């Protein structure tokens, strides 16, 4: 695929303005969508095979179909713009560079699930994306694309921007709803699932920004066209976030299933320094298991291919580590993040994440003891599948993969009481 879809307006002068967005074909899908019954819109998205871009890869059309048909309660669409997974910065790009594309996707999707209100939950640090989105909403409302009676169609949709205040866990959908209700962001037990009892106990669907930015294209060109992009069961374009030791880090659009090394070498420009070799790649944000350089040779970057390699596409935050990196130190850095962000509700997570962080910190500082790796793996084993949300699992995944795949480095640190790599 050479044609850019999600990023087609990125870098275009005035891309965030309504005038430029309309001039480049924007809001045509919305005009079409409001003339269609909600079911037709939802069916088209279901047929397209679109899967959630927030991390889980759950089929979007199926998620929408869980919304009850006959509930008398208000229905809500929440847009998850709490982009906080380390290594991920794609939704920020979309909201800053093409807020009207995002907004068009939000409104069409709200229509598909018959929601009259959209809440966009943006992480607190994203002040600029928040302002860009709010400006786009104000412009669109003046033109009749947002409001009680969109373009005279009788379809109504209000969009409310809501700013978080610094808590990774609020990206978890039920924690996000708690936060949106004005509480501490503690994940809820499921069931009930949000479609049954979500925000204010009402039917609610939560989708990621990038997911919904796909919707205008699906409506415009049809599900059959969309199915031609990517791979079977992993369809459509994807925004890959490349960071770390690359010449040209950044957000790149390519079909799902694009080879990892194509992203790294062709789009990312290869390793930043000629004298360095690839050591490892984390393919899907901090919560994904690390891949050794040997494992990176044939990796189609899609949900199922990465799951088959016991890691995940996640948010497609590709972090590239060259051979100057101490894996003990890199893991300490990741676990520090998780220890800082655990909400503290469940004991295995609250205690476990802090515990494994302290073990790795101790090893890194040269105070490791024989048996530390075994203790860490044992603690991780007790963190998986035992908590309300998957945060605990998400911390255990990188920890076990780092220790299992780079065990020699951890053992060397413990034996020698120091890092054997030269300081980069």
């Amino acid at each position, binding site marked *: 695929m050479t044609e850019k879809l999600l990023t087609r307006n990125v870098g275009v002068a005035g891309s965030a303005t309504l005038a430029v967005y309309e001039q480049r074909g924007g809001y045509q899908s919305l005009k079409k969508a409001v003339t269609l019954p909600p079911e037709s819109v939802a069916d088209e998205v279901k047929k397209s095979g679109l899967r959630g871009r927030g991390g889980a890869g759950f089929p979007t059309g199926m998620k929408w179909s869980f919304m009850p048909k006959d509930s008398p309660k208000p229905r809500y669409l929440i847009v998850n713009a709490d982009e906080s997974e380390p290594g991920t910065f794609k939704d*920020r790009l979309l909201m800053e560079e093409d807020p009207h594309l995002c907004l068009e996707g939000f409104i069409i999707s709200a229509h598909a699930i018959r929601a009259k209100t959209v809440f966009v939950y943006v992480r607190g640090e994203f002040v600029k994306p928040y302002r860009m989105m709010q400006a786009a909403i104000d412009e669109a409302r003046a033109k009749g694309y947002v409001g009680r009676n969109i373009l005279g169609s009788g379809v109504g949709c209000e969009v409310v921007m809501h700013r*978080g205040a610094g808590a990774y866990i609020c990206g978890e959908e039920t924690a996000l709803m708690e936060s949106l209700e004005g509480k501490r962001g503690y994940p809820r037990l499921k069931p009930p699932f949000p479609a049954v009892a979500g925000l204010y106990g009402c039917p609610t669907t939560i989708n990621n920004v990038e997911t919904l930015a796909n919707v205008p294209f699906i409506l415009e060109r049809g599900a059959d066209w969309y199915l031609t992009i990517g791979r079977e069961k992993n369809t459509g374009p994807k925004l890959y976030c490349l960071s770390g*030791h690359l010449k040209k880090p*950044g957000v790149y659009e390519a079909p799902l299933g694009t080879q990892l090394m194509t992203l790294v070498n062709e789009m990312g420009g290869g390793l930043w320094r000629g004298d360095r070799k690839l050591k490892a790649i*984390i393919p899907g944000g901090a919560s994904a298991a690390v891949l050794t350089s040997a494992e990176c040779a044939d990796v189609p970057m899609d949900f199922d291919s990465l799951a088959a390699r016991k890691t995940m596409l996640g948010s497609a935050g590709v972090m590239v580590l060259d051979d100057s990196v101490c894996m003990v130190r890199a893991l300490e850095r990741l676990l520090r993040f998780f220890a800082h962000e655990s909400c503290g509700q469940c004991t295995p997570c609250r205690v476990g994440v802090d515990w494994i962080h302290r073990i790795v910190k101790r090893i890194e500082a040269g105070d490791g003891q024989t048996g530390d790796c075994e203790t860490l793996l044992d603690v991780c084993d007790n963190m998986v599948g035992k908590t309300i949300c998957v945060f605990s699992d998400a911390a255990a995944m990188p920890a076990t993969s780092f220790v299992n795949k780079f065990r020699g480095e951890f053992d060397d640190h413990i034996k020698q009481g120091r890092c054997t790599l030269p300081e980069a």
Partner: protein
Amino acid sequence: MSETRAGTGGLKVLPSDPRQIPGFAAGSVAVRGPAGPEGITPDPGGPLSPESLREIDRLIALYPDRRSALLPALWVAQKEQGFVGVKPMEEIAARIGVSPAFVAGVVSFYTMYQTRPAGKYLVQVCTTLSCYLRGADKLVGHLKRRLGVDVGGTTADGKFTLTTVECLGSCGTAPMLQLNDDFHEKLDPIGKVDALLDSLK
């Protein structure tokens, strides 16, 4: 580790005050913020201005349940006074219809609410993995020397508070920092951060 986070210094002997135990202040029960362990006691703060109270009422009207306006209302308070003190927490509690203790519980959960005055410029350096790979620790070390404060500290003239934070979603343009509301990215070579600080009055 060359850097320590606010309130989590590398003490070897456990001190009698639990707030000084490494990791304690980083847990979810303590108020977090650039002030470190001292930040557990919020500043009294002052009453909110009529403009801020009107803005809070406008925000309340946006939601089906007024409690949803709590986080936005706290932002209004922080914007006006630079931090969220006890008095604004009480005023917001009364307007939203929850107890002051509930508001304090919410404030303490979210890292971005300060409960004590910070410097005029809050310098937050991201030190998570992608930024670490691109020299975030060097950036922090440079800022510590240049400002003459440790992480969590405020300069004597009250101009700068230096903190380190977790991933800000700017990994492709690392290393970076957030200065109040704004991101400053690609701060390599380090002279760029000097130019940035020099430009601030």
